Structure formats: structure tokens, C-alpha cells
């Protein structure tokens, strides 16, 4: 094995064997699995059947509501001609009913249905109750106004405003879909940012640890300082990729497991209801059909192989760039406290990029996004948002990747120069001014 191979091997195995690595690598997917598990479990637990008492003194519903052929409806409707009001509903006589709905002529005028509950129905049940009541009241209202129900429903439909890019007139890239797709890219942005911070930070601490434990001079009497630095940077990058890979595999396995465990015994209607509920909470959409849109987005419109490949490329590029700069900081410091001061000029731009990644949400074609996706110090964090939104072409990505590679080669070259001087400077913290002097050596 070559010397750099030996270094990579030592740095890699010493890290992946650490308890903290094993715990974090296994714990994160388990936590994500647990959240999924909890969401489904809570969803199932709330599948209580609701008794809805409709107080209808004006006989608007005529004692019936069309519920269709649902075998497991989340609620059943009961009617009373008495005008109950909340106070009477709260008496012993009506304690078997979970929800009280008051319907009258003024309900039609105000277009507001008021419902009072004991246990709060979940979103799915709420949607069921409101849908059924609304449909029944619409029937009454249409007849009252002298139009047919079909005509009424046609009139009721709202107009949809579709914004289209002249460059993309066939409408595949409408802004709404772009924004949603960009959100998926945003998740990757944040993941890359976190990975960069964690693993570039590990490079810095690793360099510092070798320096403070005084083992570094023994090592560099056998290998070139550059080999030691690159071995460390490469090994830690591989640790990051390993962790990412394990997470992806474990998350898929756990989610499939959760799905198989819970959903095997359930009937399709319940699954659909549950999916609607969950999607409903995630998005602001109000009509049935949102779930299909999201599913289409996630399963069809996002090009996962492209996105994941670019994730790996941009993570490695960004990591090598920031890792080499963090190596400079580690080699120029003499203690953990020193690094905190030296790291500030590096952290400020990185935090700035982090905030930009929020500001360009919904605007993946704006100047901030376009420039941010090309400048090598921000492209690893910004570009994936644009890729997910589908607003970049291959050339732009290629330019950005080439710029990133060129820049990390340059920063690695600088880091190597600072590193070989810095690691043997014991007992003093260098200022950035001194670091620039070392570059001239």
C-alpha cells in the first residue's frame, strides 16, 4: 500500500470505528423512521368513529346526507329538528354525540357552518364532515336559487391562474411546480451545508489534534506534509460519503419496513384517507388531488439519479474546497480556542451563502441564484436547488463544476504551503497576516 493509502486507511478506519460515528450513522435513520412510524401511528390512533348531530330546525337537509359507498366512513350523521345550541349539547342527553353542527337558513346566507366538538376530529374526519355537509347544503341552495345542481357547481368553479415562461410555453415548467421541486433541492442544500460544516470541521480538528499531540513531526519524517494533509482530507471525505450512503440505504429499508408493518393489514380506503391527511398537513392545498401532485413531483419530475450524482459531486467539491481552508486554520492554530478566532473570516461567507439559500426559495432563476450557483464558494449549496427546480442546463452545471474543481485545486495548493509551515510552529497562534507570509515561503 502506498504511503498516502496507509494514511487514508488509518484516518478512515479510526473514524468509522468511533462510537460517535456508529451511533450517529444508525441513529439518524432510526429517528427518521421513528418520526414516520409516529406519524402513521398517530394517524391510526385517531381513526375514531365520530357521531355528528346535525341540528336542523329549518329542515334544510331533510334528515339525510348522501355519504356514498364508503364502507368505513369516519363519521355518521344524525339529525334533530330541535335548535340545540352549545349549552343543550353539553347536557347528559346528548353525551353520545361527538360533534354538534347547527344548520339553518342563515347558514346558507352567511356561508358559514359552525361545528362544536368534544374530542377534536382529525383532519381527515374534519374534511369528511365538512365535504358531506357542504354538498348537501349546495343542493338545497341551488334548488332554492332555481338552478340545477350541475349549473351551480359549474358556476362555483374558480379560475386558475397559470404563469408560463415564454421559453417553456408547453407548460412543463410552471412556476408553482418549479417552486415545489426547488424545495426538494433545498433539502439537499441544507444537507450539503451540514455535511460541509461537520466534515470540514473534522479536518480542522484532526490537523489540530496531530499538532497538539506532537505526533505530526514523527509522521512527516516518514511522509511529505502534503501526503499527510491530502490523506486526511480524502479519508474524512470518504467517511462523509459512507455515512450518507448508509443513511440512504437505512432510511429506505426502515421506511419500507414501517410501511409493510403498518399498511399490510389496512384497507386501501384507510391508506388513501391517511395519505390525504398527511399531505393536507404538509401543503396548503385545499382540494383532493394534491397528493397526486406531490407523488408525481417526487416520483416522476425530480430526476433522482441526476440529483444524487450532483449531490455527491458538489459535496466532494465543496468539501475539498472548505476542507483545505479548514486545514489551514487547524495548522495555524495551537488550540481549539485559536481556531474559533481564525475561522470567523471563513464562517461569515459560508453563513451568508446559507441565508441566500433560503432567500432564493421560489425564485430559482433570480440573479442571487444564478450567481450563487456559479461562484465556487456557494455553488455546492445553491446549485442543487436550481437543478431540482429544473431551471439550469447542462452547460451551466458543467461550468460551475469546472470552476469548483479549479478552485479547490487552488485552495489545496495554498493549504499545502501553509500546512507544512504551520504544523511545526508549536506554542503560538498565527494571525491571517502571518499565514499570508507563509504562502510566500
Amino acid at each position, binding site marked *: 500500500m502506498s504511503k498516502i493509502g*496507509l494514511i487514508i486507511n*488509518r484516518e478512515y478506519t479510526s473514524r468509522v470505528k468511533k462510537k460517535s460515528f456508529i451511533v450517529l450513522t444508525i441513529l439518524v435513520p432510526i429517528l427518521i423512521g421513528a418520526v414516520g412510524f409516529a406519524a402513521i401511528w398517530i394517524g391510526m390512533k385517531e381513526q375514531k368513529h365520530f357521531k355528528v348531530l346535525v341540528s336542523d330546525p329549518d329542515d334544510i337537509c331533510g334528515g339525510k346526507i348522501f355519504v356514498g359507498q364508503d364502507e368505513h366512513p369516519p363519521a355518521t350523521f344524525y339529525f334533530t329538528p330541535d335548535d340545540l345550541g352549545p349549552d343543550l349539547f353539553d347536557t347528559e342527553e346528548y353525551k353520545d354525540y361527538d360533534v354538534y353542527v347547527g344548520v339553518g337558513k342563515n347558514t346558507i346566507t352567511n356561508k358559514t357552518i359552525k361545528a362544536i366538538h368534544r374530542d377534536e376530529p382529525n383532519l381527515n374526519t374534519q374534511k369528511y364532515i365538512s365535504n358531506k355537509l357542504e354538498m348537501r347544503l349546495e343542493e338545497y341552495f341551488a334548488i332554492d336559487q332555481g338552478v340545477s345542481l350541475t349549473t351551480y357547481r359549474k358556476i362555483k368553479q374558480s379560475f386558475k391562474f397559470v404563469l408560463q415562461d415564454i421559453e417553456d410555453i408547453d407548460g412543463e415548467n410552471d412556476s408553482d411546480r418549479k417552486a415545489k421541486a426547488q424545495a426538494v433541492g433545498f433539502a439537499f442544500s441544507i444537507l450539503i451545508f451540514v455535511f460541509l460544516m461537520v466534515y470540514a470541521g473534522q479536518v480542522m480538528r484532526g490537523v489540530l489534534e*496531530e499538532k497538539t499531540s*506532537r505526533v505530526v513531526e514523527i509522521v512527516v519524517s516518514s511522509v511529505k506534509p502534503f501526503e499527510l494533509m491530502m490523506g486526511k482530507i480524502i479519508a474524512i471525505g470518504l467517511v462523509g460519503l459512507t455515512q450518507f450512503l448508509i443513511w440512504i440505504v437505512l432510511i429506505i429499508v426502515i421506511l419500507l419496513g414501517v410501511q409493510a408493518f403498518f399498511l399490510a393489514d389496512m384497507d386501501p380506503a384507510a391508506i388513501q384517507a391517511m395519505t390525504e391527511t398527511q399531505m393536507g398537513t404538509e401543503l396548503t392545498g385545499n382540494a383532493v388531488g394534491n397528493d397526486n401532485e406531490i407523488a408525481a413531483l417526487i416520483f416522476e419530475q425530480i430526476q433522482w439519479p441526476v440529483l444524487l450524482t450532483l449531490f455527491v459531486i458538489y459535496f466532494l467539491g465543496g468539501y475539498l474546497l472548505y476542507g483545505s481552508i479548514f486545514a489551514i486554520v487547524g495548522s495555524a492554530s495551537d488550540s481549539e480556542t485559536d481556531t474559533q478566532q481564525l475561522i470567523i473570516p471563513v464562517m461569515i461567507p459560508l453563513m451568508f451563502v446559507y441565508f441566500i439559500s433560503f432567500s432564493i426559495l421560489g425564485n430559482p432563476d433570480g440573479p442571487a441564484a444564478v450567481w450563487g450557483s456559479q461562484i465556487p464558494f456557494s455553488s455546492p449549496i445553491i446549485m442543487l436547488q436550481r437543478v431540482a427546480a429544473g431551471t439550469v442546463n447542462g452547460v451551466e452545471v458543467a461550468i460551475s463544476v469546472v470552476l469548483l474543481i479549479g478552485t479547490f485545486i487552488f485552495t489545496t495548493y495554498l493549504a499545502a504551503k501553509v500546512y507544512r509551515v504551520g504544523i511545526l510552529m508549536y506554542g503560538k497562534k498565527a494571525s491571517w497576516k502571518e499565514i499570508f507570509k507563509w504562502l510566500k515561503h
Partner: protein
Amino acid sequence: MEMLRVDNIVKQYAGHTALDNVSIQTKKGEIFGLLGPNGAGKTSLIRIINQITGPDSGQIFLEGREIKRSDIEFIGYLPEERGLYKKMKVRDQVMYFARLKGLTKTEAKKRLEYWFEKFEITSWFDKKVEELSKGMAQKIQFIITVLHDPKLLILDEPFSGFDPINTELIKREILALKEKGTSIMLSTHNMNSVEEICDSIALINKSKLIVEGGLKEVKSQYRSHTYAVQFKGMMFGFANALFADFSLEHSEQIDDDTAVAHVKLLKENKLNDLLKTVMPVVEIESVHEIMPTMNDIFIQAVTEDSGESIKQEGGEDE
């Protein structure tokens, strides 16, 4: 036979010169003492020999040919600032460094077992370095330095931090390696060990080489021609006989009629002249020359050199 030759090495750091045209030469199989006060440039020179840093000018030759990168496998280096990976197990650590020096896995394992058995420390194999005492860790560092059987061993302050027992152990090992033909360069402030084990020395002060040569020659170069004369008789008479040709440096009464005097020969006088002068007044029992210790030489050479450089600097001001 020449082992290492350092030719006109110059090394400058921002603002100061660490090595100013330094040339030294060591022989195969000898222990060479590299001496000098703190900050003189010893570590800079050692790092250049180890190719950790490069010189601004000058050349290094190993066994007569210019040193190349791959030669570091023939050198064992124990730095003054030394440590180990704290969380790594002793066995893994020694194996790692042995393999970085180019040993195969099998060879490294064989030698590791040899040294650990020799030092009777096989029970430490699975211990982490952070569980070891400082002395224990230093033994491991010594093993790491010699495991690949280097031709040239460079030890920077090898005895610092060791207790007297371990110092003796390491000293014994250094001598044993010398017997086997290993050339050793020793940088130390411990002048007693220099006297005990070094064959030749070089003294660097303020980035310049000021003394170099075999231990005996250097000592002879720095002899002050002072003799200890033990005699029976009166000290008063002895002192009076000396006149202006000799100087009485020190005297001590041993018993009622026996005394020891340290006399320095002045001008061109020889020991015979001294004896002729004092024999008529006292009865001489023994005479021997007082040779300077390495400690004396170190202090004298550095003080004289610093004095001169202060004078020179003063002269420049004028």
C-alpha cells in the same frame, strides 16, 4: 567512512537566519553530538536532514551521495516535540509508523514483537496510548524510531522526560545500536551524556557552527593547561615559588601537611618548568592535568562567541 555530510546549509525564515552556512560531517558507526543553546538552529538542521523542510541553499550527502526523498527510510528520527495518537492502540500505532517507513506487514510485525519482548512490554499491545504513562509512551516512541533498523538515527533530546532508570536503558540501547554499526546523531543539553557516549561533536550558536571535531580533540583544543598538584609542605612557600610564570587558580588543604593546588601554566611554560620551580620548596605526591568538561567547553565557546558577536554588532553601530 563518511555517513552524513552537510555542506554550507543556509536556512532563513521570515526575519531571521536559522542556519548560516553550516557544514558538518559524521562518520559511519559513530555517535555524533549536535550541541547548542536553545534557538541555535539545531532543530532546523535536523529537520532539513530529515527532509521535513528544505534548505535555502547547500546540500546534504548520505554515504557520499546526495540525499533523496526515498532515503528517509534509512533514517530514524526521534523529534524533541514528540507524541503519539492518543486513541490508537499501541500495536496498531507501531505497525502504522513501521509501514510508513516502508516495512512490509509481516516484517513490521516480526520486529515489533522483537522489540516489545526485549523491553518486556508485550502486555501493552492492546492498550491505548492515553492509558500509558509518559515514560511508557517514550519507550514506544523509541521503538518506533528504531524499528525499521535505520542506518542513521537522529535523536533530538532523547533523554528529556525520562527517569534515571529509563535514561540508562535508552543509553544502553543507543550504545548497542552503535555496536551494530548504526550511525547516531544526538542533539542534547545533557553534557554528561555527551561525555559518556559521543565520539565527536558540533556546537552551533546563533545559527553558526562554532566548534567541531572529535571529543578528545575538542577537549584538547579547550584545555587550559591547568594542573592539579598534590604535595606535602607549606602552601605559602608553594605559592611564593610560582612568581609570574604560573597562576595559582585554586588551593585546598587536605590535612595538616598535605595540600592540592590548581596551577595554570602561563607564557610558554611546560609542566616540567612548573615541577622544577616547586620541587625545591615542597614534596610532590601526584600531578595530573585538569581537562575541561563538555559543560565548561559549551559555556566558554558560547560565551566567547556571543561576546564577539556583541562586539561586532557594537562596532557596526559606531
